């Protein structure tokens, strides 16, 4: 369709280039003059949205790689230091981490759109298969990217997923060892994953070029599923499709920004804020939400090899779709049965995703098996059968006819799209939340925090008191290794002056050296120093504390969570509730009881805590009334201490939260205004096309 262009630049310099390399003609014929079906709906803007997401991921990824250290001992810390120290590091990291989810969200809509409108049918088979290849590459890239922060989920995700290959008969072990570059997941694994994670996006970009090329040869499909026949059926790509795509992209950016600025950890897993520990597996290994349906299929099959084969088969089968469904009518709009089965299939996929996040036991296993059968039956039985027995409704004669017949009912479509968006977003996104369970404890009561909500700020007084509690009580056993003394004077922090922070630092003894004599020595702390940890190493901490090493508290409020459950997690998305961590931490501090309730036995050396999972905690009751003096007249009660120290620890976990919310508000105001402008511009541009 995009045959040789007769476009000629008028500028002599451009003419000179064009004669030697006809690049302007290529761009003109592909992205300007290219005829676009007039009847495309907003589902078609996801192609542009995906291109943007790929660009965003590559750009932010290249930048993050400038600051990241791919070493097993340093990776976790380097990611945290990016977030804390690099200019706008928190923003870039949130963009990249949430961006992966947005990328998959958009690709799923893009794929379902192709499925619904039969975009894989003749002559677009190669186009579709290239899409499946891109999707596979995305999965590999996303998986390896998730390993890089080197948290608990990174490590154990890497272990579980690479072990899938051990199911290969005879060669399994050899392959897995080769993948790891060692006898277990370790530093060599991290290094190669980093290298490949950097490489694959560019491979994706290459396949995307082929994908777009194939698209421009076959021409775009459209909701009516009939080909462009006359001039009246199409509009030029620029400005019509361009402006519409940009409007779609802007709306998508609003959705994306909600995550970046307000819910950055909503899609993540609290366990990934715990540094990788090869000796302890988290209670629930859950992949990122976008893999959950396939993970559910894997777990439904009771045989290892068969499970792995089915999981990969569930993706590979997509490549055969053009031959499994050989109905002549493309669009499901005119296929009453196919349309119903399509929506059933969508529900099956979402339910599989939900099951993937649940523990593999009881009714979940049975449901998983049934849904796995449904998933494959859709491709292997329903679609081939429908092609034979279904009588489609008549398709419109031309695209122009289709446009005329459906110029009404547009608002309803738009509204339903928006609704579908919100529901699917909330559901899919939230499905992982349920898996972050801390089981066996009571749900901590939700507290009022000054830092919750879109305008939340840290209460300075509370931060200062919390610091005092940390210093006088917690710091005896717990480190705070990611916080430097200078941070106490940072904007959005406890509000000390640089001089006060320096004075605070000088009260600490810091190990330094070696000096000219080659000896280590102690000196007073400086603002640039980090809070010293109470124990020289983990072993020492373990021995001194009855076998349980007290965790570092820098990230504790992000690394702890509890089960929210359905449908609570869906509401959380809209109310921006993300204080599970602080609620949990403060509940633990207040949850010690003198008397163990009847029926619960607490082992020797442990203490009863109402909110601790399993109730037996190794930490003795740390706070009691009156233990720390406050100079500002605040009550010196355990409840107040717990509240203050939790506020302080929330700040320690996210020192730039105030900047995040402030910039988020500016971004939202801008994007909404821009979306309105884009909407009217789009209407003007399209005024003569309708």
């Amino acid at each position, binding site marked *: 369709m995009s045959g040789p262009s007769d476009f000629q630049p008028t500028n002599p310099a451009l003419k000179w280039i064009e004669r030697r390399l006809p690049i302007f003609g290529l761009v003109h014929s592909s992205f300007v003059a290219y005829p676009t079906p007039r009847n495309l709906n907003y589902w078609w803007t996801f192609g542009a949205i995906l291109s943007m997401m790929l660009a965003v991921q590559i750009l932010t990824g290249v930048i993050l790689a400038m*600051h990241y250290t791919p070493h097993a001992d340093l990776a976790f810390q380097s990611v945290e230091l990016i977030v*804390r120290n690099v200019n706008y590091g928190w923003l870039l990291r949130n963009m990249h981490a949430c961006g992966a989810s947005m990328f998959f969200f958009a690709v799923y809509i893009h794929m379902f759109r192709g499925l619904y409108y039969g975009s894989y049918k003749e002559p677009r088979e190669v186009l579709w298969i290239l899409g499946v290849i891109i999707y596979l590459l995305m999965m590999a890239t996303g998986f390896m990217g998730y390993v890089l922060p080197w948290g608990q989920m990174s490590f154990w995700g890497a272990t579980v997923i690479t072990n899938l290959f051990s199911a290969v008969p005879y060669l399994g072990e050899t392959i897995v060892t080769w993948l790891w570059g060692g006898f277990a997941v370790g530093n060599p694994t991290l290094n190669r994953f980093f290298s490949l994670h950097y490489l694959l996006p560019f491979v994706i970009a290459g396949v995307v070029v082929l994908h777009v090329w194939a698209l421009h040869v076959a021409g775009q499909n459209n909701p009516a599923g009939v080909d462009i026949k006359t001039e009246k059926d199409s509009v030029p790509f620029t400005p019509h499709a361009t402006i519409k795509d940009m409007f779609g992209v802007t709306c998508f950016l609003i959705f994306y920004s909600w995550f970046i600025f307000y819910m950055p950890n909503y899609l993540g897993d609290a366990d990934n804020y715990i540094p990788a520990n090869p000796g302890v597996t988290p209670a629930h290994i859950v992949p990122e939400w976008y893999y959950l349906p396939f993970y559910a299929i894997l777990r439904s099959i009771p045989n290892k090899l068969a499970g792995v084969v089915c999981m990969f088969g569930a993706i590979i089968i997509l490549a055969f779709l053009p031959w499994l469904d050989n109905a002549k009518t493309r669009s499901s709009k005119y296929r009453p049965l196919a349309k119903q089965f399509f929506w059933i299939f969508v529900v099956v996929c979402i339910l599989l995703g939900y099951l993937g996040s649940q523990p593999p036991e009881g009714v979940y296993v049975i449901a998983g098996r049934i849904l796995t059968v449904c998933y494959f039956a859709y491709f292997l039985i329903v679609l081939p059968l429908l092609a034979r027995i279904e009588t489609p409704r008549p398709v419109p004669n031309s695209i122009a006819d289709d446009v005329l017949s459906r110029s009404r009912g547009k608002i309803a479509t738009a509204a339903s799209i928006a609704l579908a968006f919100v529901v699917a977003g909330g559901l899919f996104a939230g499905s992982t939340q349920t898996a972050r369970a801390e089981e066996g404890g009571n749900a901590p009561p939700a507290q009022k925090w000054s830092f919750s909500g879109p305008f939340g700020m840290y209460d300075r007084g509370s931060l200062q008191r919390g610091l005092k509690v940390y210093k006088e009580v917690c710091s005896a056993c717990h480190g705070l290794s990611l916080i430097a003394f200078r941070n106490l004077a940072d904007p959005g922090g406890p509000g000390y002056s640089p001089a006060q922070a320096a004075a605070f630092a000088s009260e600490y003894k810091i190990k330094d050296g070696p000096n000219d004599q080659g000896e280590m020595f102690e000196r007073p702390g400086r603002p*640039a120093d980090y809070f010293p940890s109470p124990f020289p190493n983990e072993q020492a901490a373990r021995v001194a504390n009855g076998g349980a090493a007290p965790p570092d508290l820098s990230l504790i409020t992000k690394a702890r969570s509890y089960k929210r459950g359905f449908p609570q997690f869906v509401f959380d998305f809209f109310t921006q509730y993300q204080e599970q961590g602080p609620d949990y931490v403060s509940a633990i501090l207040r949850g010690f009881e003198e008397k163990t309730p009847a029926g619960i036995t607490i082992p020797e050396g442990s203490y009863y805590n109402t909110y601790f999972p399993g109730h037996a905690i190794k930490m003795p009751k740390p706070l009691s009334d009156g233990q720390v003096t406050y100079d500002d007249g605040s009550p010196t009660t355990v409840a107040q201490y717990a509240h203050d120290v939790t506020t302080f620890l929330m700040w320690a976990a996210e020192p730039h939260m105030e900047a995040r919310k402030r910039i988020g508000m500016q971004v939202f105001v801008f994007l909404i205004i821009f979306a309105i402008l884009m909407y009217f511009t789009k209407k003007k541009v399209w005024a003569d096309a309708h």
Partner: protein
Amino acid sequence: MTTASSADHPTRRDFLYVATGAAAAVGAAATVWPLVAQMNPDAATIAAGAPIEVDLTPIGEGQDIKVFWRGKPIYISHRTKKQIEEAQNVPLSSLPDPQPDSARVKPGHDQWLVVIGICTHLGCIPIAHEGNYDGFFCPCHGSQYDSSGRIRQGPAPANLVVPPYQFVSDTKIQIG
């Protein structure tokens, strides 16, 4: 686009396009800023560049030490009488980058020369006590500095830079 404006409101459409385009430009510029700013030194690097204190007592006359501040080597030389005299007596007019010795040391501490040991030509590190001027010699392209760290010969355009520092006591300086 102006030619395409409809006759009855010729400006409203243009205004819309201009406003949308302007908003897009503002948005693009605001997006680019963090992507550029991230390459500046991060907060930890800046904090690590805080002033340092150096004890001068171990440096005997005619000796020098090299310390690092902000990743740069700093030469601290305890000059001999001869070196001081040479530095003070050279006619300023004969210098490529004229600067009296008094402007390069702290008053009352003539014997201490503190300079950033980075050749002003292209950044190599000059060697102390070498060259024809009782000062520094840069092996890279042959620049020669005198006992006050001033350029005397070779391709370097300027004198060795004196870092910000002050005497905390007679035997201790703070650099930065």
